[in-house]
């Protein structure tokens, strides 16, 4: 990666898409492209992060995101430690701030955090001297998912600007939806939200999103169909009457997909509920579904983010707030 100048990005932590600019996003995606190429080689390992410590702190169970971050860190040469809430002091009643102070004393260089409560990752970042990456906080943000989705789209269609992206499903509880809506908006795509009103926040239109309650109408002429996972416990009559009714009206099948553009791509952040939000055969259709490609892009995007954030601390002591750093370091 010698062709990329080690300029620190304009942000020290990656807490969300909110606050990023179009050039920031473009920089991450450009660097990610290079890591995609690297990851397809036999020798995938680099030593950019050699000697550095990355802690993956997961207060919620996760397989793919945690694995993806772990792999990304290891491929860049970092020492990666996984901490899960069940195995740590958190279950013994330690507060979030105390956990942060404890971890900080161990001098990690990067902390990757997933937490069930919105805003918890930002709170934690205030007590840490290292870079903090939000791997999902409550129903708030999941920035690396939005970035990997953007990378997947950009690599398939060449650009994001002007595309119509339909996001369907449980938008109310989805951090993936919020991050994607923001990122796609920043990059000039038209975003639609399709869901029953019980799964949509009330002020959705304030995020520049066009709202639909009818799948056929919402999918009309869409370039991208982004399906969201609907958790089973939300389909037992609280938000949606049943799995059967949800699939009938909001599940993606060929008939509904036919309203979108003929080449429209199907995305899903995983894990999928086959037969609930998406037809099983459609999810496996290599011509339409880029669901597995998204997983591949995830590792590359996380490598790019780890790489970029590490540039704030190139053999330097812990650094101050972002604003004192702006334009610094080249």
């Amino acid at each position, binding site marked *: 990666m010698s062709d990329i100048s080690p300029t620190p990005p304009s942000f020290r932590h990656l807490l969300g898409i909110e606050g990023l600019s179009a050039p920031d996003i473009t920089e991450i995606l450009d660097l990610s492209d290079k890591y995609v190429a690297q990851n397809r080689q036999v020798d995938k390992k680099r030593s950019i992060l050699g000697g550095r410590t990355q802690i993956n702190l997961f207060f919620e169970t996760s397989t793919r995101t945690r694995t993806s971050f772990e792999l990304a860190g290891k491929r860049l040469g970092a020492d990666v430690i996984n901490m899960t809430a069940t195995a740590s002091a958190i279950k013994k009643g330690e507060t979030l701030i105390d956990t942060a102070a404890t971890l900080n004393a161990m001098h990690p260089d990067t902390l990757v955090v997933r937490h069930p409560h919105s805003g918890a990752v930002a709170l934690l970042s205030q007590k840490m001297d290292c870079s903090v990456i939000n791997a999902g906080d409550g129903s708030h943000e999941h920035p690396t998912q939005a970035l990997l989705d953007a990378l997947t789209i950009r690599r398939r269609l060449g650009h994001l600007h002007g595309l119509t992206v339909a996001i369907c499903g449980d938008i109310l509880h989805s951090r993936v939806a919020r991050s994607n809506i923001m990122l796609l908006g920043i990059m000039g795509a038209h975003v639609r939200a399709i869901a*029953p*009103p*019980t799964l949509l926040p*009330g002020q959705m239109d304030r995020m520049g999103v066009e709202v639909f*309650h*009818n799948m056929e109408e919402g999918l009309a002429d869409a370039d991208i169909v982004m399906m969201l996972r609907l958790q089973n416990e939300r389909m*037992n*009559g*609280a*938000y*949606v*009457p*049943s799995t*059967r*009714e949800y699939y*009938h*009206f909001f599940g993606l099948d060929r008939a509904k997909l036919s309203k979108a553009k003929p080449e429209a791509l199907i995305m899903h952040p995983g894990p999928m509920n086959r037969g609930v939000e998406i037809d099983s055969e459609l999810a496996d259709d290599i011509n339409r579904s880029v669901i597995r490609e998204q997983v591949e892009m995830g590792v590359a995007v996380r490598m790019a983010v780890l790489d970029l954030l590490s540039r704030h601390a190139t053999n330097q002591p812990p650094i101050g707030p972002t604003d004192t750093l702006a334009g610094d370091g080249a």
Partner: protein
Amino acid sequence: MSVVAYTNARLIDPASGLDCIGALVTEDGKITELGPEVCKDGAPEGAEIIDCGGRILCPGLIDMRVFVGEPGAEHKETLASASQAAAAGGVTCIIVQPNTEPVIDDVALVEYIKRQARDKASVRIHPMAAITRGLEGQQMAELGLMAEADAVAFTDADRVIADAQVMRRVLSYASAFNLLICHYPEEPSLAGRGVMNSGEIAMRLGLPGIPTQAETIMVERDLRLVEMTGGRYHAACLSTAQAIEAMARGKARGLPVSAAAAVHNFAMNEVAVGEYRSFAKTAPPLRSEADRQAVVDGLADGTIDVICSCHDPQDVESKRLPFELAATGIIGLETMLPLALELYHNGALSLLDLLAKMTSRPAELLGLRGGKLAPGAPADLLIFDPNTPWRIDEDGFHSKSKNTPYHGRPVQGRVWRTIVAGKMVYSDT
């Protein structure tokens, strides 16, 4: 199929405001033409001619709130017996409530009601389906799928959705499909064990009362939730001045709301309970005279859109009990028209306005094709004389149950013929 010409009729169509002497022709179950000039030069060739003798010919009545015991309590009423009672009462379309055994909360059961109705009933029967599974007020039933199976609206019948979050989500979800949510508005924690209106009579009888505020609070809560969600809401029956006032304010704010009143809440007041007459135990309970008058005023000023019978058959065994233990409900299909006509005879409402509340207005709310006299509309007709005096006689009822408090009451206005899809289903002889 045969052509029928109804001549020498006073045609009243609330949907268009028509009120004139003329004729109406039907063919193949549909209205083909009507008006003052129709049949002026004789009826169409080969047509059967029915001389209405100057009686009123209007759309058949639509009753939005009918309880039938089928499935589960066929000894009280079947779809067949209810439809005979309806036909005798000039009602050509009944909307049956889902609080049967089993509860109509599934597509298969909606289909079952439709099939039974088609095979056994002489009038049109449309099911309202449950809002929540088992009418338990917790989990939303499959509203969208049941709407596709032709459930005309959704209600938990005589049960209340006490949980505001559940009601919010129901209204919100229903708004995406433009479904009508009918709710029996009564705050259950306030109604408690109450069996009649709270007040002096309940106090003297030593019966637990249901305060009017129980209704008001629930209507006001529901209106706030409608404002929040945009769902279409129908108060299944209003009985109190305060709740009607709340409904009027909600309508003035432009909310997509409507309301009905049960015949018993303007035809009687709480005095009818007398010495523990369980036939006067109803839901909503019979209220004070001031509340009864407010129901009449609400009907007159349009705050209340619909008159329904709240036909609720109960057998003698479940009524001949101490008042607190007796079943709630009275039958009403066969007495709805003459009792509603009291409002016309005493000058509270015009005939057009009164009939609109039992024809065009419910048809609009439920999205039914009937409820109007127009070419192409179904030939569901009622022919009646508004002035014929008679005494209500339970022995003449077609309903399987006889729980009526109106036996012996002198009324004016009597059904002469009831026609469904061009076919005569009732004739007064």
